[in-house]
């Protein structure tokens, strides 16, 4: 045995769990694939273009920001920009012009994420701020909805317009929440079945509750996200709906609750560190969402509900610490 063998010395522990940030981000992408495919299926190839442009531009903005900040481009391999690009695209109406995702990702990546120091240092969810910016700046584009070009099962009796016909695939319409809130005449609300399947008007990736739930459960199974946030979020929406005499099932199935609860409100960086904090976060986001839906100007409030809770996260972290082992009561 050579006694002068060079050995590596480092501080314990000497083994590590295999799952790093890049692994988690890839799991999020996998979990979003079903709903993404459904969105493309229901809303056509233009939505595919929106998704591609959004992802490519998000990665490009990230790369440019890293170059300007003189950071290594290896940070791209954490896949977080891909996730931001994909998530932003899924919250856009299907027929937006292609410059919309480019502007949205610029706000998300440059303004929200990189200016604060990159992944881990942003205090708001980049994709949601991107969407909020677009909604305020281009309200008409961001609220122009179309009916799906394909439906599942028998003809879609839920909406008045005949949309299953292939002749006129693009018909402007309203989302179920808008129909419900603004009492728009001439429209019927879709059935629970269609709300679950997702062949209804809405953002590209928010309509198929079933596939979003599938992706969300996958992330919980893979231990990427904590079940506490989506659970408390959705439960709060349900309970508040009952309290205000709304149809609770409709309130959780319509709109962006599932996309928001499973994929936005579970963003590691912008949500609380502790179990208790996460439950508070979910309740808060659900509460704010319903307040906006019931009393606000917009029919939908998921994005703003989560963003406000993002901003409150440092406060939640400060106020809800885990119980220390052996803590002596004073």
């Amino acid at each position, binding site marked *: 045995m050579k006694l002068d063998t060079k050995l590596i010395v480092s*501080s314990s522990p000497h083994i590590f769990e295999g799952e790093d940030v890049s692994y*988690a981000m890839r799991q999020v992408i996998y979990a979003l694939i079903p709903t993404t495919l459904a969105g493309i299926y229901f809303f056509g190839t233009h939505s595919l273009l929106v998704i591609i442009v959004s992802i490519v531009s998000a990665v490009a903005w990230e790369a440019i920001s890293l170059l300007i900040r003189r950071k290594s481009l290896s940070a791209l391999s954490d896949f977080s920009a891909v996730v931001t690009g994909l998530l932003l695209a899924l919250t856009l109406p299907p027929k937006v012009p292609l410059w919309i995702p480019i502007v949205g990702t610029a706000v998300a990546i440059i303004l929200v994420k990189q200016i604060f120091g*990159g992944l881990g240092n942003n205090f708001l969810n980049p994709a949601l701020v991107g969407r909020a910016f677009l909604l305020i700046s281009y309200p008409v584009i961001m609220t122009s909805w179309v009916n799906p070009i394909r439906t599942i099962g028998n003809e879609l009796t839920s909406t008045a317009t005949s949309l299953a016909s292939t002749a006129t695939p693009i018909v402007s319409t309203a989302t179920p929440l808008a129909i419900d809130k603004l009492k728009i005449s001439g429209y019927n609300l879709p059935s629970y079945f269609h709300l679950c399947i997702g062949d209804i008007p809405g953002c590209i990736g928010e309509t198929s509750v079933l596939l979003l739930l599938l992706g969300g459960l996958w992330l919980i199974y893979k231990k990427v996200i904590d079940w506490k946030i989506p659970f408390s979020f959705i439960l709060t929406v349900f309970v508040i709906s009952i309290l205000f005499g709304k149809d609770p099932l409709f309130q959780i199935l319509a709109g962006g609750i599932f996309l928001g609860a499973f994929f936005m409100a579970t963003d590691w960086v912008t949500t609380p*560190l502790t179990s208790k904090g*996460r439950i508070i976060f979910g309740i808060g986001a659900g509460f704010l969402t319903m307040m906006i839906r019931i009393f606000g100007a917009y029919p939908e409030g998921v994005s703003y509900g989560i963003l406000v809770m993002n901003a409150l996260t440092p406060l939640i972290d400060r106020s809800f610490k885990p119980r220390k082992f*052996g803590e002596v009561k004073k």
Partner: protein
Amino acid sequence: MKFSTFKGGVHPPEKKDLSKDIPISKIPLPERLIIPIQQHTGAPAEPLVKPKSYVYKGQKIGDKQAFVTSPIHAPTSGTVKRIGLYPHSSGELVTAIEIEVDGKEELYPDLPEKVSWENLSPDEIRQRIREAGIVGLGGAAFPTHVKITPPSEKKIDTIILNGAECEPYLTIDYRLMLEKPELIIQGLKILMYVVGAKKGIIGIEENKKEAANLLRNYTDRDIEIALLYTKYPQGSEKHLIKALLNREVPSGGLPLDVGVIVNNVGTACAIAEHFNTGLPLISRGVTVSGEGVNSPKNLDVLIGTPVSKLIETAGGFREEPGKIIFGGPMMGVAIYNLETPIIKGTSGVVVFRKKDVKYYEPMTCVRCGRCVDVCPMGIIPTAIASYVEKEKIVEAEELGALDCIECGSCNYTCPSRRPLLQWIRMGKAEILAKKRK
């Protein structure tokens, strides 16, 4: 079936199959032994011998007039070659006594006589344990006679023996439980007698059921064998007490504050062995394992044996070694010198091949909260580490840095690969240094 456990913790790959079915074997007498004067928590011993003096097997060669200390002994007969600085598993150079082994194994003529421990008073037993140089063999090497001398106002009702062995790779405690069950039970009875405890519990992770089943054959009414859920760090004494008795050692306190003393099964075995043979603690069981050695082994090793001898006995390096760890991979210390001696606290030697050694560039914290979820002490590792990083020591202390038991679960699980434990350790050292001023 539900097994008792605690909140938090991680599940690293166990890797016990490499060595768990291999009986403990002796290793050939090495040509030289290096006996550091510091092998325990407390004051270092002072050498009682000089270069060129002849030492017998079992002869005391170092001691100190202090309460928290432990004497050291010559593990075999030979001549003192040199007293000087030698590599030590702490990473520092530590004064040690090098013995040139003569191979005659001449017993020290003045060894204490073998007496039945039942005929001794608790204080006489404590004295014998002290003189035998017995310390905790689980890793921290705290002098056992100190541990079993609680202040008189603290009533001890339970002795727990730690057979959890939650570190990956290590199987020596498991082998001891299989091969020397009657000694472990005897050691437990001695400990219970000394502190007047009514109850003894041996806590064993459920992945070592065979050991638990075997030990049950030797128990009586006062002794319970309890299975624990297999999870790291189940072997932490605070979490062992929590799992077995649902008592919580208060922050900053000791197990004796909740009426418990915890000892490793190896320590109990060493105590019983001492009363059976009269010999002091001159050898211990060591698991030599890891992907980096050809044939992993459980070995009975003389204190002071250079680690190279153990690796030789385990078939040598399989390929280019990367890291050699004294202890397990979660809490063990990476050593840099193949002449580093096995000391009383060395429970295992784990060898990683060069290609098994992971190094990561740390990233920014992504606030996933996993370190918080796994921390068995309920503190927020990422926040403490960040404060230490920014040299905000007061804030780090307020968040409970001193409660950290350095199990490394946070560091193991961190997806941003942040060296959380290293930061917290630095913070603890600074907080303690400030307190001493």
